[in-house]
């Protein structure tokens, strides 16, 4: 009755197709029906309901875990149509942890033993999808039997299932492995070979070492097979095996090259290329051949082949960069390919080509591409420039002035969203590279001056860095008044509070600096009534002075510059500016801003009466000035203390002073502090300065020569020449730049020159020039000192120990493959020079033994309750014994291996690896 009115799957599909909007309502209605129908005792009704549910599950994401038991009922129906519905439902919806999964064990066994081929197939399929430890363990004997089935399709599937058995229940290896290996040789039936190669390909990708002894079989397939699918899999296996055994690599290189040049199938050719580039990279001639084929791929019209060509270049790049350089033109051109994937791939390659000598040119090309690209790719480019250049503490950067101005330029690119990274690098460079600070400050100033930038939220982080740098290294600023104006400009209200706080702090530093230099110049001009303040002269000589800063530090240089700018008027102007701009902020809701604003205002309140007196009446002047300068100097000293980078592991290296017990209870600390507070504060400040000294002497190790006074004047001159002989600019531009005293970093000029030639071809041409090795310009400028904090600087490289997840699996494989052999091996290890025949003979013998063993077991399986368990127990006992054996021999082996040519590094702590290290490489190949 039920089935009469039941809607069939076709009805549901048709219904679904006609639903436009109310699909979910329709689905829930059907689901309701299904829930009712599936409880039916009629097998047809039940299986139809399950079929509908399975359909909804795989197309409409409907949960069907509740129907697990019904699915199991369906597979027990004798009718094949119902059975297959059940199997499909199970393989689509079951997982290892499905509660009722164990209930299907018996049904599966029954179907595996069925005479109907399709039923066996269904059961095997199902096992391969959902098999967990229990199922795999219980059904291993049946699968083992089927592996020898006379029906090819069944045998093929049984082999496919083996992969699941091994993965879930490694002891299955001891049962099935021999038969699996035998299947490798069934060259008479191609489906079997193709299935078994697939299994070995997967197995070998997890633990290649264990399958090295099978190399002769794989080699035979490589040479004999005509099936491209099989060949690709075999190549994948050899990709894994070849690096383990150089003699094997030598053996296979020739057939692979032949295959590569003979085959018409692009997929096989590409696999050959990949195998050569990945695992046979030491064979120069093979790599040359492969490179030739890559060239063919690159010029193909099919974007797939172009992509793969680039991909292959990326594989070869680390070992044979010449192959990439040969195609550099194409790589650069691909940056403007219509396909974003190809663009990405070529960007990766371009970054591979970067070296110390061409980083400037490559970055120029890339930045040009970035300005023209759509936002997403633009940021990918910028990101890769930033990460490549900063790699290993700016390893490839020689000219930091250039790099810093590049950072400035990058921040101005319209779509730039790399604010955080640029911020970090600007500050990091400022701390590490003393020589670049003047340029940093210049770049920072340019960014701060531009009111338009304040409106771009992506730039706020960069502006924060620029503000901090200009405040911290304010002594390099040409015009501090101008800096103050830009730090306090009205549009700064667009900044987030945290950045604004940085702005205020920097303004404070700049103010103190201005006052300090004003007072200093006032006193000095007082004494030498001459006064240097002729603006015309000084602005010309400015650059020379600023050039001096790098080496000279603040003390001597600053006073000379500042005299020109800080007049009594400008001091008044500054104080007014602060009143106007900072005054309102003292009531800000943000505590950081409020606090800093109040600091500044408090300071100006203090300094104002003293200063304003000193500006006018002549008689009192001297006394007042002394007082003011005392105050200002105090603050100036506070700000001018050098901030150094601190290693992450610095704390650990501070030695614990004698007598300091860190583990003791500090309860009595209060009593001590209460009585001697002033004294303790003195010691704290002393320790502070001591620490700074300590830090500099520990961390800034390379800077000795800079503090040496003897070479100061000559190095000053050299520094000046270096700065203006910037080798990335042609000389005539250089002078222009010098005279113009322009506001923009020199890099911008170059940029405008290049953007005229918008064409990709021109860029490619430019790139072509740029990749020429520039011997000439090399080392015009010495690389400045970059402070490195020894090992604590770079993030600790996570020493990734490849932990074999399926340890038990590889152990089992090893056991089966060379369980007996290993024994024999310890006796006859010296027989490395033994004849081929002897060893082969022995192998055969072993094989026979094992086979007998298995056959024996097979015949027993009817009588013994659980043969697998029995056997696995036995073999594990045996394995233990073997290991004990190895343990005893270990010392001897080690000595022996030290003389051997190949890998024995895995040493003592890794016994299984040790066992495998004596894997006899089949002599057939060698």
């Amino acid at each position, binding site marked *: 009755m039920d089935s009469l009115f039941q809607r069939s799957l*076709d009805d549901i*599909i048709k219904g679904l*197709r006609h639903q436009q909007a109310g699909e979910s309502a329709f689905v829930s209605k059907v689901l309701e029906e299904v829930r009712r129908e599936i409880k039916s005792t009629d097998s047809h009704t039940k299986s139809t309901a399950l*079929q509908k549910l399975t*359909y909804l599950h*795989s*197309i409409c*994401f*409907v*949960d069907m875990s509740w129907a697990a038991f019904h699915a199991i009922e369906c597979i027990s129906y004798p*009718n*094949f*149509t119902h059975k*297959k*519905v059940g199997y*499909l439902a199970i*393989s689509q919806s079951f*997982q*290892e942890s499905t509660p009722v999964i164990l209930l299907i064990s018996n049904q599966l066994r029954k179907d595996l033993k069925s005479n*109907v*081929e*399709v039923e066996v197939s269904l059961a095997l*399929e199902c096992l*391969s999808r959902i098999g967990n430890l229990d199922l795999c363990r219980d059904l291993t004997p049946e699968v083992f039997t089927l592996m020898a089935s006379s029906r090819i*399709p069944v045998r*093929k*599937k049984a*082999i*496919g*299932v083996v*992969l*699941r058995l091994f993965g879930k229940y490694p002891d299955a290896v001891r049962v099935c492995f021999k038969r699996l290996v035998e299947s490798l040789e069934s060259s008479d039936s191609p*489906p079997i070979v*193709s*299935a078994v190669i*697939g*299994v070995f*390909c*997967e197995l070998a*990708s997890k633990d290649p070492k264990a399958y090295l002894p099978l190399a002769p079989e794989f080699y035979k397939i490589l040479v004999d097979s005509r*099936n*491209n*699918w099989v060949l*690709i899999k075999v190549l*994948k296996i050899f990709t894994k095996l070849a690096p383990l055994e150089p003699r094997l690599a030598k053996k296979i290189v020739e057939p692979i090259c032949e295959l590569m040049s003979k085959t018409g199938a*692009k*997929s096989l050719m*590409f*696999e050959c290329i*990949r195998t050569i580039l990945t695992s046979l990279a030491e064979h120069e001639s093979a790599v040359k051949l492969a490179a030739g084929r890559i060239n063919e791929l690159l010029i193909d019209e099919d*974007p*797939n082949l*172009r*992509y*793969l060509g680039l991909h292959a270049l990326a594989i070869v790049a680390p070992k044979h960069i010449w192959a990439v350089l040969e195609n550099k033109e194409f790589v650069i051109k691909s940056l403007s390919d*219509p*396909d*974003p*994937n*190809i663009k990405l791939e070529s960007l990766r390659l371009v970054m591979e080509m970067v070296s110390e000598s061409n980083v400037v040119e490559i970055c120029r090309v890339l930045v040009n591409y970035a300005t023209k690209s759509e936002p997403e790719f633009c940021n990918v480019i910028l990101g890769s420039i930033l990460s490549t250049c900063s790699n290993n503490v700016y390893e490839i950067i020689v000219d930091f002035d250039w790099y810093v101005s590049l950072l400035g330029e990058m921040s101005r690119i319209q779509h730039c969203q790399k604010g955080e990274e640029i911020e970090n690098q600007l500050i990091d460079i400022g701390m590490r590279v003393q020589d670049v600070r003047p340029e940093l400050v210049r770049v920072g100033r340019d960014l701060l001056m531009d009111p338009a930038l304040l409106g771009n939220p992506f730039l706020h982080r960069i502006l924060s860095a620029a503000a901090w740098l200009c405040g911290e290294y304010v002594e390099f600023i040409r015009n501090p008044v101008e800096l103050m104006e830009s730090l306090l400009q009205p549009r700064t209200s667009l900044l987030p509070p945290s950045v604004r706080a940085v702005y205020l702090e920097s303004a404070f530093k700049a103010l103190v600096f201005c006052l300090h230099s004003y007072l200093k110049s006032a006193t000095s001009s007082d004494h030498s009534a001459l006064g240097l303040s002729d603006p015309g002269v000084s602005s010309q000589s400015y650059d020379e002075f600023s050039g001096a800063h790098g080496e000279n530090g603040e003390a001597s240089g600053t006073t000379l510059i500042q005299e020109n700018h800080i007049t009594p008027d400008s001091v008044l102007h500054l104080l007014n500016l602060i009143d106007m701009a900072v005054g309102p902020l003292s009531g800000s809701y943000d505590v950081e801003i409020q606090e800093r604003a109040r600091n500044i205002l408090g300071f100006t309140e203090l300094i104002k009466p003293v200063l304003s007196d000193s500006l006018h009446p002549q008689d009192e002047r001297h006394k007042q000035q002394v007082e003011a300068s005392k105050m200002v100097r105090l603050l100036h000293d506070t700000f001018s203390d050098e901030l150094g980078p601190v290693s992450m592991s610095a704390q650990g290296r501070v030695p614990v002073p004698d007598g300091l017990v860190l583990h003791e209870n500090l309860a009595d600390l209060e009593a001590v502090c209460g009585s001697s507070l002033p004294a303790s504060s003195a010691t704290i400040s002393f320790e502070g300065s001591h620490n700074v000294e300590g830090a500099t002497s520990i961390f800034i190790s390379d800077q000795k020569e800079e503090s040496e006074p003897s070479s100061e004047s000559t190095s000053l001159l050299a520094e000046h020449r270096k700065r203006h002989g910037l080798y990335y600019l042609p000389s005539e531009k250089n002078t222009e730049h010098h005279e113009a005293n322009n506001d923009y970093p020199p890099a911008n000029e170059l940029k405008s020159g290049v953007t005229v030639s918008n064409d990709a071809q021109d860029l490619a041409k430019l790139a072509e020039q740029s990749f020429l090795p520039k011997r000439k310009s090399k080392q015009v400028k010495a690389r400045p000192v970059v402070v490195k904090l020894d090992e604590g600087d770079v993030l600790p490289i996570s020493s990734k120990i490849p932990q074999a997840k399926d340890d038990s699996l590889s152990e089992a494989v090893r056991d089966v493959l060379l369980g007996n052999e290993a024994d024999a091996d310890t006796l006859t290890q010296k027989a490395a020079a033994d004849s081929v025949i002897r060893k082969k003979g022995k192998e055969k013998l072993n094989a026979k033994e094992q086979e007998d063993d298995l056959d024996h077991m097979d015949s027993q399986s009817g009588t013994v309750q659980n043969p697998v368990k029995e056997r696995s127990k036995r073999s594990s006992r045996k394995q233990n014994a073997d290991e004990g054996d190895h343990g005893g021999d270990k010392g001897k082996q080690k000595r022996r291996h030290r003389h051997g040519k190949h890998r024995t590094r895995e040493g003592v702590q890794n016994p299984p690896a040790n066992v495998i290290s004596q894997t006899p490489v089949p002599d057939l190949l060698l």
Partner: protein
Amino acid sequence: MGIRFILMVNKQGQTRLAQYYEWLTLEERRALEGDIVRKCLARNEQQCSFVEHSNYKIVYRRYASLFFLVGVDNDENELAILEFIHLLVETMDRHFGNVCELDIMFHLEKAHFMLEEMVMNGCIVETSKSNILSPIQLMEKTS
């Protein structure tokens, strides 16, 4: 694992067949299909058929209104997977005769069986059309 999943999606982005070779929850499947379909359907004919997606890649190919998307491990041979897709389409074509989206919709079970013949545990095990189809013909006889 090799192949992680096979999807057939029409150009409106509706899934027509989904076969996974590793266990994913329904939510994960829904999210994954949404992501992938968005990524692949936006691409045009001039672009290559390979898309990198988290820690694996997708090889896809379009036949009329239907997209075939195969998620594979990174070291899988992309061109071989393209050939695999083509083989799958040819096989279905031979069975259904001028296969179209509707055939797959109404014979989802058969499509699954063909896939099961071709792929096991994420490995391609059978590449001969007649071998793939013979069990299905056998099944039709049996039932």
